[in-house]
C-alpha cells in the first residue's frame, strides 16, 4: 500500500497539478494578507474560500486523477497485490497531496506574517484541520462516484452535482425548511441538519471559534452549548471522520467486488 501511495504521490508531483494548487493557495494567502494585515480577519475570509473551494477541488481533482490513472490501476490489478491496498494507496496519495498543498500553501504566508505571535494560531490550525478533512472527505466521495461510474462524462456530471448539492442546494433546502417550520422549535433540527453536511459542519465549527459567533444570537447559543464543549467538538470531529471513513469503506468494498 505504501509503495502505491509513494508512486501516486510521485506521479502527482510530476503531473504539476499539485504545484498549481500549491501556487494557488500561496498566492491566495499572500494576497489576502497583503491586502489586509489583520490575521484574524484573514482567517474569516479564508474560511469562506476553504469551505467552498476545497470540496470543489477535492471532487474534481479526485475524479480526474482516478480516470486518468485507470490504465495504471488496471495494470496493478493484474499484479498479486491486494485490491484494498491499491485503492487505498491511490486515494491517500491524492487526498494527501491535496492536503499538503493546502497546508503548505496557506501555512507559509501566515507563518511569514507572524502567525505564532498572534492569538489566532488555534483558529488557524482548526481551519487547516477542517480543510484537510474536507479534502479527504470529498476525494473519497469522488472516488466512490468514479468506481461506480465507468462513463467519464457521467462521472464528472455526478461529482459536480455532488459539490453543487453540498455547497449550495443543501443550504437552500435547509433554509426553506427553517422558514416553513418556523412555528416549531428548530434547535435540534438545525444541529442535526448541520451535522449531516460536512461543509455546513465545517463552517459552523470555524464560525463558533471566531468572535463572529455572537451574531448567531440565540441559535448560536444553542450551537455553542453543543459544539463549544469538549465533547461537542469531539462529536463534530468524529462526524467529519465518519464522513471520511464511510466513503473509503464503501470504495474498498466496491473495489473488492467490482469486475474490472
Amino acid at each position, binding site marked *: 500500500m505504501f509503495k502505491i501511495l509513494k508512486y501516486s504521490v510521485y506521479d502527482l508531483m510530476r503531473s504539476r497539478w499539485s504545484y498549481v494548487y500549491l501556487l494557488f493557495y500561496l498566492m491566495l494567502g499572500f494576497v489576502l494578507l497583503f491586502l489586509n494585515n489583520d490575521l484574524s480577519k484573514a482567517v474569516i475570509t479564508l474560511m469562506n474560500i476553504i469551505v467552498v473551494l476545497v470540496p470543489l477541488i477535492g471532487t474534481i481533482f479526485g475524479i480526474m486523477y482516478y480516470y486518468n490513472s485507470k490504465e495504471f490501476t488496471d495494470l496493478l490489478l493484474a499484479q498479486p497485490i491486494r485490491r484494498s491496498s491499491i485503492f487505498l494507496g491511490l486515494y491517500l496519495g491524492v487526498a494527501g497531496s491535496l492536503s499538503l498543498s493546502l497546508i503548505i500553501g496557506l501555512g507559509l504566508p501566515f507563518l511569514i506574517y507572524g502567525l505564532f505571535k498572534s492569538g489566532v494560531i488555534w483558529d488557524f490550525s482548526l481551519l487547516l484541520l477542517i480543510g484537510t478533512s474536507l479534502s479527504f472527505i470529498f476525494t473519497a466521495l469522488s472516488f466512490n462516484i468514479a468506481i461506480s461510474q465507468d462513463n467519464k462524462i457521467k462521472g464528472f456530471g455526478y461529482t459536480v452535482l455532488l459539490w453543487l448539492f453540498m*455547497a449550495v442546494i443543501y443550504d437552500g433546502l435547509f433554509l426553506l425548511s427553517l422558514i416553513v417550520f418556523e412555528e416549531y422549535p428548530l434547535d435540534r433540527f*438545525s444541529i442535526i441538519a448541520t451535522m449531516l453536511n460536512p461543509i455546513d459542519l465545517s463552517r459552523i465549527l470555524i464560525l463558533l471559534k471566531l468572535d463572529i459567533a455572537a451574531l448567531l444570537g440565540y441559535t448560536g447559543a444553542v450551537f455553542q452549548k453543543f459544539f463549544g464543549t469538549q465533547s461537542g467538538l469531539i462529536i463534530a470531529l468524529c462526524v467529519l471522520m465518519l464522513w471520511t471513513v464511510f466513503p473509503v469503506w464503501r470504495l474498498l468494498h466496491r473495489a473488492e467486488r467490482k469486475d474490472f
Partner: protein
Amino acid sequence: MNHITLLFLFLGVLWHGARPPAVLEVCDSCTYKTVTDAIDSAQAYDTILIKAGTYKEFDLKIRKPLTILGQDLPTIDGQNQGEILTIQSDEVTIGGIRIINVGTSYTKDFAAIRVVKSKDFIIRDMVLEHLFFGIYLEKATRGKVLNNIVKGDAEEEFNSGNGIQLWHCTFIEVIHNHIEKVRDGIYLEFSDNINITGNTSKNNVRYGLHFMFSNNDIYQGNSFVNNGAGVAVMFSKKIIMKRNVFKENWGTAAFGLLLKEINDSEILDNHFLENTIGIQVEGANRVSYSNNLFRRNGWAVKVRGACYGNTFSGNSFINNSFDLSYNSNINDNVFKRNYWSEYTGYDLDKNGIGDVPYRPVKLFSYIVNRTPETIVLLRSFFMDLIDFSEKVSPAFTPDNLVDAYPLMKQKL
C-alpha cells in the same frame, strides 16, 4: 422650609465672615482620631484634612457645608456595615479619599457617597472600591462629580449597584470619571440637564450608561468598552450624544447603543467599533444620526418597531456583517450621503457621489428578521449567492429603503 434653609445659609455666611475657616486634621496622633469626631466638632465652612491611614467608620453624615479632603489618599473602610458618607448639606466638597467595603443590601441602596437634596457640591478624585452603589445623587442640583475612580466587583445584576447614580437631579456635571465592574456605570433617572463628559465606563455587568426618563442631557467624549451593553437611552427626549466611543460591547445580547422610545435627539461623530449591534433602535422618532463611524459590527444599525422621521447622513459603514436590519416594509427614514464599504457602484461624473443607489438591507438580513434560526446559514455560499441576486434585482427588501446618494469615499 425654604425660609429656614435660607436663614441657615445666611447665618452660615455671617459665621463665615466672622471667623476664619479652621482646618481640622484627622490622624492617629492628631486631636481628632476619627472622621466622625472631626465632622461633629467642625463648624460650617471648615476644612477637614484626613491624613494617610485607614479609618474604620461608616454612616458619616455631613449636615453642614464642609470641605473634607484626604492627604495621600487615606482609606475609609466601611467594613460592609452599610452606607459610608451621606451629604445632606449644600456646598460640600469632598476629595482625595479612598472609600472601601460598602455594605450590600437587598432592601436598601447603600452607597459609598450619597448626596441628598443638596446644591453646589463637588465630589472629586475619590477612589471607591468594593462597593454596592458608588456615588448616589438624590434630588441634588448644580453639583460636580469629577475625576473619580469607581471599581466594583459586580458579577450578577441582582446583587450589584450602579457606579454613579443620579435620581431626580438637575444641572450636574459628571466629568472624567473612570467606572469599572459595576451594574450600570452611570445611571440617570428623572434627571435633566446633565452633562456627562470624558468618562470611561468599562467591563460593567449591564450598561455603561443608562438613561431613564431623563431629558435635555448631553454626553460627549466618553468611552464605553466591553460592557454587557454600551449605552441604553430609554424613554427620554432631547439627548445629545457626541464623539463617544462604543467599543467591543460583544455578546449575544449586547449592543453599543440602545435607543428605546427616544425623540428629538442627535447622535453625531460617535465611533461604533466591534459591537454585536452598533445601534439598536426601537421606537425612536426624529433622531438625526450624522458623521458616525460604524466599523466591524455584527449589525451596524438594527431598526425594530415604529421609527419615524430619522435621518442618517454622512455616516461611514465599514466591514459590518450587516449594515442595516429592518423588520418592516414601511420606511419613513432617510438615508443619504453615507459611505458604505460594500457599495459597488460607480461615479461617472466624479462628484464623489455614487451614481447608483445603495440598498443597505441585504436579503439575508431580511430573512433572519423573519426567522431568526436561519442565522446558522451565516457566511454560507448559498446566502452569498442569493444576496448577490437580490442586489442585482431587488424583490423582497423594501423598495424605498435606499441611499440614493452614497459617498464614494469615507468621510473623514
